[in-house]
């Protein structure tokens, strides 16, 4: 589904990603772990198409298409979803409006009829139950005045409504208490599907206790320095990231 080859990217003129290679197949859940500054969020944002990131070399194929050549909204319509580390507050735009506009834009792209208000509300209310969100949040402005946990749940709600083919969760566990983490995990697990794939970007192992990945990759210094199964996450939990020093000196130096 997703083939990343020798991806190099910079933020401003500072190189962050220095040759990422990663293949994600349908049905798989990959975890990307690594210390702060290793390039985890840059990778997520490059995949979603953020404009202040410059790809300097390499390629990303998504379902046979050149992902990097696609506009931000084209990627979303093709089924790529980024759950933001810091969801953006948009005063004046209703949460329900965003959900409906997003869903219908994607349905239209896929040649499906747009949902009418009744069908849409039924769908959203169903997903809100899953996320244990109160209906009143639909009628508030996007993320405005939401607590950290509410914002993250709102991201997963959007994901549940949009049913993306490839989901990238950028530090979704950060700032969540244990109850919220479980709700988020339920939402994410409900979306696991043989035809969908997920990339979980995280600093800590605790998200991986509630969402079991098929593969774990360690990112350091802008490169994947180790890959393995779920047991690798446990190893990291015990040893921390300090051992990376010998394998990836750049990773250590850029870690803060």
């Amino acid at each position: 589904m997703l083939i990343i080859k020798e991806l190099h990217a910079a933020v401003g003129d500072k190189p962050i990603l220095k040759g990422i290679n990663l293949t994600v197949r349908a049905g798989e859940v990959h975890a990307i772990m690594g210390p702060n500054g290793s390039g985890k969020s840059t990778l997520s944002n490059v995949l979603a198409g953020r404009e202040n990131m410059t790809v300097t070399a390499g390629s990303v194929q998504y379902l046979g298409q050149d992902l990097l050549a696609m506009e931000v909204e084209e990627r979303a319509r093709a089924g790529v979803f980024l759950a933001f580390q810091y969801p953006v507050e948009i005063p004046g735009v209703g949460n329900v409006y965003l959900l409906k506009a997003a869903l219908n834009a994607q349905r239209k792209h896929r040649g499906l009829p747009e949902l009418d208000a009744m069908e849409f509300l039924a769908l959203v209310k169903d997903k809100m139950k899953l996320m244990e969100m109160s209906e009143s949040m639909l009628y508030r402005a996007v993320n405005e005045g939401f607590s950290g946990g509410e914002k993250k749940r709102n991201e997963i709600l959007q994901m549940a409504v949009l049913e993306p083919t490839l989901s990238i969760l950028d530090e979704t566990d950060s700032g969540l208490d244990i109850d919220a983490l479980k709700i988020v995990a339920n939402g994410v697990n409900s979306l696991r599907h043989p035809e969908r794939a997920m990339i979980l970007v995280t600093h800590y192992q605790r998200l991986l206790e509630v969402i079991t990945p098929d593969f774990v990759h360690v990112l350091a210094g802008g490169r994947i320095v180790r890959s393995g199964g779920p047991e690798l996450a446990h190893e990291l939990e015990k040893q921390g990231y300090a051992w990376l020093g010998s394998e990836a000196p750049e990773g250590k130096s850029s870690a803060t």
Partner: protein
Amino acid sequence: MSTAIAHYLAEFERLAPSLPWQDSPQWQAWRQAGWDHFAAGGFPTARHEEWKYTSLAALEKLRLPCGPRAAAPLEWDTLRIRALLPEARHRLVFVDGTYQPQLSRLGPLPAGIHVQALSTQTAERSAALQAFLGTVRARTPFAALNAAFMADGVWASAEAGACLEEPLLILHVTSAGHQVHHLANVVQVAEGARLTVVEQYLGLTDAPCFLNQVTSLHLGAGAALTHLKLQQEGAGTYHIGALQAHQQRDSRLESHAFALSGVFGRNDMETVLAEPGAGVVLKGLYRVAGRELQDFHTSIRHDSPDCSSEECFKGVLEGNGRAVFNGKIRVARDAQHTVSQQTNHNLLLSDQAEVDTKPQLEIFADDVKCSHGTTVGQLDESQWFYLRSRGIGADLARALLIEAFALDIVASVPVPAVREALEQLVRSRDHV
């Protein structure tokens, strides 16, 4: 004498005999005073503090005939689709400066409510009208020019305790162009009375024209007036408006201004909080694109203690559009316990757009709560990215963010039908 002044003088001399109530020496004197006041100062230039950022050079070059013009016949069905309140039970319609009884309608009015076109006033009633129009010398240059030429408009009044629940629509349509129109509206809300007045200026032509209007509002003790003015002028229209409000004890004025199109717009809005307990809310939204300009000069005079004012203007600027906001608030020495709040926020959507914004607080009392704030910003990239990352197209995402910025001004309009129509208008401009 400048050639522009000579042009207007010739027009004044040509039209004066046919202007309403000119058989009355008081009116003759009043109009002459208006002319003299305007002619003495001439067209303001950048040297005038009040006109520092707004050039009148292009308007001064327009030598258009003044006065009402025989209007081409228009059907209500044509106007209905553009009217802010298509179902209004009470509406007065003017086309090219002239009252159109066949396009207007007045449902049964409650006792104590009077609504009439100025041109239909008898000389006898017109004497009372003049009192409400105030002293010409206190007027801005263009309001003085309006005094000289003013030939039509609306006189709406509510006697003590009277109340009109439905809004009154005053619709002015510019249809032919190539003309200068002078209109005056007088709204008088006596003690404890309530009224809602909506002024809509609708341009159906892109030909050059100049509309110079004055609206006078008089609020008695405990009176409540909701006022709204919408400018949807054609691409060639210069619109200059003056709002003069006078408020007595415990009166409440809410005035909402929407300047959405027209090559040039200038509004001088002044309210005097003359007696204790009076309150005013001024809200405004201006949008400019292409080479348009909108200029709002507001002035709130806290002349008495325990009065409040709340003012919020927002601007959306695209292309080479320009805007000016000057918000003066004057708190007199004995106007203690004044509460006053002023904000002006601007969204610049292009590198060529420009806004000059200036709060101007003159506070002579010492026990007051006054605040003001101004921002000039651009579209938030992270919000734009967020919306697009959900599959919303770049243009729609941009339009949504512009609406989100502008719509809280629309949301503050208390008349639901007007609010909904304005939402559509603000949206449609984004989605073009």
